[in-house]
């Protein structure tokens, strides 16, 4: 199968390169058959990549340890579902995964895009083919990057999968993040296609709008699952450490979020065309930059599971793509004149502009902090470190400004808001702000925590007001009941109300972040029967009683499990189990260092999180970290709301499709009747 895989890679590379070159050198505008050929190459590349993927999966599932990748990341006793996910566990597999998914997205873009944008599609095919050709080329020509590389011998068993990757999060986190990164190629391809074809109206935006939401959705889900995975697997009780690799996933999310807001201004008013082009190009480049950071090891990261010279392929690709894209944008600058101008500061357009400033500002500050160690070393020759304290100092005020704008944006009318309109719109959310502020003051919150609650209630007030007014209007005008009115309101304005749900999700993230600042953590060594009591930030005591350690084997590991009883006033006692695991391969040899599974009890108020360090030889005394982590669940609720809102916003249908259907129906009935009436 490796021969077939190799053949598929080479064929895919030749086809993708050919399709890419053809799109830019052939005069396909005058030759429809050539345009069709260019588009068909994306389907052909898809077939070759699927064959390559099937070949690798076959090797993984059949334990073909002669394949270096299979020997490096699997073992005979690895559960089947982890065998499947090892496809993207290492660098070689990730590169193939990227190429496979890109070929799927490239083909879907050709298949799903409406025919009225057909003059863009050959360019789109060309760009996706070039990006696919780059990834396949990295596999074929990079140093030890070919997933089908064979060893000179066949080991009896493989090295196994890193225990930290043996988690359900492993099944979802990397693919989701990759899907987010990869799908960004499609909006980028449409933007470049529009520039090349000089079709600089809103058409390219309509053609790629849902792709941008899809990318944003995958990035959001990938980042959130990554937070959850880190929370459970790394054992430090936090969800975000401002690590370079974490930051790399955050950059494109921020700029894409900015794009999703500013693109509405272009759709409605024909403004910000240059800015939107710049944003989508920048977002794509940031996704490549993220891969460069992850793969190069140029900046130290706790998440860099794989580092090699392959990062410099990405650096070269990043530079070439950046220079070509922005040069192309510069040559079309004159064709991107706005069709309207901003009329007032008190307008939704202006609010969105400030929102863009905050989002891009945060992206810049995170990028600056990530790169500053390199800049410092280059300028002064002195290595420095930039940790969470730096990022929090710079970004928390910006984040709160953004939260404020999240509440303000929906309240202001397009074009120009009147004084009366502003007064009417701001009364209830303003009251919510005051209630939140007073409530937070009363419970003792100060500073950023205080503003988080006050601004969070302001945003919730805004969203509730928008829903309430819309529902009431429908109930009054259509005699609908509450549920029907709510359902129809949302289904007929999916992007708007999906966006509001996302705003509530963002508030939840801020609440989760506030909880992180209230975390309580203590280290204790206990013998069975001993207990320790911690004071929760909510004021009640939490008692942890160590019951004992049991040891047993599972499929590929030996487990030492510490059982802790938890008691809180007014609640039934509960138990949690924190584990220390030693993994073995099928020959009984230790693989990897011992790993940890935290013990966790979670509710809306707080997480009780226990990390078991171990039990020294010959003693019964065990060491634990006991952590009371307030409000962590709000991160996961926020993530769920982001998914719900995002899916609602991108769901097919809505007013445009309905309008087209209505138009068609009217034409079908009206034409014959009118004609016959007139002529008879």
């Amino acid at each position, binding site marked *: 199968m490796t021969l077939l895989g190799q053949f598929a890679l080479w064929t895919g590379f030749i086809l993708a390169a050919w399709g890419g070159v053809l799109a830019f050198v052939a005069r396909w505008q005058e030759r429809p058959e050539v345009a069709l050929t260019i588009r068909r190459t994306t389907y052909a590349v898809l077939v070759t990549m699927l064959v390559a993927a099937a070949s690798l999966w076959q090797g993984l599932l059949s334990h073909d340890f002669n394949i270096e990748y299979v020997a490096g990341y699997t073992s005979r006793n690895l559960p089947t579902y982890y065998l499947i996910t090892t496809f993207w566990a290492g660098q070689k597999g990730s590169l193939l995964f990227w190429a496979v998914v890109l070929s799927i997205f490239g083909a879907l873009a050709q298949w799903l895009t409406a025919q009225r944008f057909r003059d863009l599609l050959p360019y789109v095919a060309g760009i996706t083919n070039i990006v696919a050709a780059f990834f396949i080329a990295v596999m074929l020509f990079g140093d030890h990057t070919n997933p089908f590389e064979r060893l000179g011998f066949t080991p009896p068993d493989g090295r196994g999968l890193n225990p930290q990757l043996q988690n359900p999060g492993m099944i979802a986190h990397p693919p989701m993040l990759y899907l987010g990164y990869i799908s960004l190629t499609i909006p980028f391809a449409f933007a470049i296609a529009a520039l090349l074809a000089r079709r600089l109206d809103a058409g390219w935006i309509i053609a790629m709008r849902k792709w941008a939401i899809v990318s944003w959705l995958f990035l959001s889900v990938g980042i959130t699952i990554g937070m959850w995975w880190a929370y459970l697997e790394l*054992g*430090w009780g936090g969800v975000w*450490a401002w*690590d370079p690799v974490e930051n790399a996933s955050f950059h494109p999310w921020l700029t894409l979020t900015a794009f999703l807001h500013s693109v509405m201004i272009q759709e*409605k008013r024909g403004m910000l065309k240059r800015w939107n082009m710049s944003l989508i190009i920048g977002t794509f480049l940031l996704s490549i930059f993220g891969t460069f950071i992850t793969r190069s090891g140029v900046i*130290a990261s*706790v998440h860099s599971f794989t580092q090699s010279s392959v990062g410099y392929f990405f650096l070269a690709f990043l530079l070439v793509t950046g220079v070509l894209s922005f040069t192309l944008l510069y040559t079309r600058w004159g064709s991107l004149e706005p069709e309207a101008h*901003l*009329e*007032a500061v008190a307008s939704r357009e*202006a609010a969105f*502009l*400030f929102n863009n*400033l905050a989002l891009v*500002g945060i992206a*810049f*500050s995170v990028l*600056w902090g990530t790169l*500053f160690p390199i800049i*410092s070393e280059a*300028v002064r020759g*002195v*290595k*420095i*470190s930039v*940790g*969470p304290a*730096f990022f929090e*100092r*710079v970004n928390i005020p910006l984040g709160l400004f953004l939260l404020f704008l999240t509440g303000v944006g929906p309240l202001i009318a*397009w074009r*120009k808001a*009147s*004084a*009366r309109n502003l007064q009417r719109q701001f009364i209830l959310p303003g009251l919510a702000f005051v209630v939140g502020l007073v409530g937070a003051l009363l419970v003792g919150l100060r500073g950023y925590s205080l503003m988080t609650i006050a601004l969070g209630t302001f945003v919730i007030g805004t969203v509730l007001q928008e829903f309430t007014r819309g529902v009431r*209007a*429908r109930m009054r005008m259509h005699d609908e009941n509450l549920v029907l009115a709510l359902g129809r309101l949302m289904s*007929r304005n999916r992007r*708007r109300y999906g966006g509001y749900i996302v705003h509530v999700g963002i508030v939840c993230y801020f609440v989760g972040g506030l909880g992180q600042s209230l975390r309580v*953590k*203590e*280290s204790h060594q206990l013998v069975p029967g001993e207990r320790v009591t911690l004071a929760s930030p909510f004021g009640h005591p939490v008692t942890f009683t160590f*019951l*004992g*350690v049991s*040891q047993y*084997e599972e499929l590929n590991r030996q*487990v030492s*499990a510490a059982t802790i009883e938890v008691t809180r006033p007014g609640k039934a006692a509960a138990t949690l189990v924190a584990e220390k695991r*030693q993994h*073995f391969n099928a020959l009984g040899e230790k693989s990897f*260092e*011992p790993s940890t599974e935290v013990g966790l009890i979670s509710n809306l108020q707080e997480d009780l999180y226990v990390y078991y360090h*171990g039990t*020294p*030889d*010959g003693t019964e005394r065990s*060491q634990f*970290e006991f952590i009371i982590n307030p409000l962590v669940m709000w991160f996961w609720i926020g993530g769920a709301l982001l998914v719900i809102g995002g899916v609602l916003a991108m769901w097919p249908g809505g*007013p445009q499709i309905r309008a087209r259907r209505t138009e068609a129906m009217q034409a079908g009935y009206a034409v014959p009747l009118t004609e016959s009436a007139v002529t008879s």
Partner: protein
Amino acid sequence: MMTRRALLGVGIAAIVPGRLRGQDTTIAGGGGDTTTALADPLRNPFSVGRLRDSLTAADSDPILIATEKRLRCTCGCTLDVYTCRTTDFTCTYSPAMHTEIKALFADGKTPEQVIGVFVAREGEAILMAPPARGFNLAGYLVPGLVMAAGLLGLVAWIGRRRGAVAAAEGTTPVMTTAAITEPDAGARAALRRALEDIES
């Protein structure tokens, strides 16, 4: 009489898969004497972590913890000393640094002096955040300056655009303050159509 611990141990043995382990370190499955396993101390250091010193009150001193949070572990994990030593059980660097920091405090050094000892030996890279002086100020100030420049630029751009719009219209934009009245039938129909078509 069975002690509470033994009782709970039997309970745990009943619910967990496999068998409770004592001195036996083989990894193959199979039977075993649960009672014996319970009675023996745990003797399997490779499976339950490295040996650790006993914790004392000094280990949990808030000033010590705050100091450790300002220092980076040298193992390459990118975590601070406190987080690393209370998280990554395989790291041998952070426990050693912790011991050294504890000793420095015991010698009567202040937090700044303790940090100074590490900076003198390891350089600025040992700090979780660079000191705000010299070139490092750029690290702290550039994001704020860029944001401020962006804000000023945006405000100026908006002002210029508004001026252009006003000049084109030959008048200054007037805010609408018309009273909201109950709409008539025609207005209600128009409103209904508008509501149907809302897409923003």
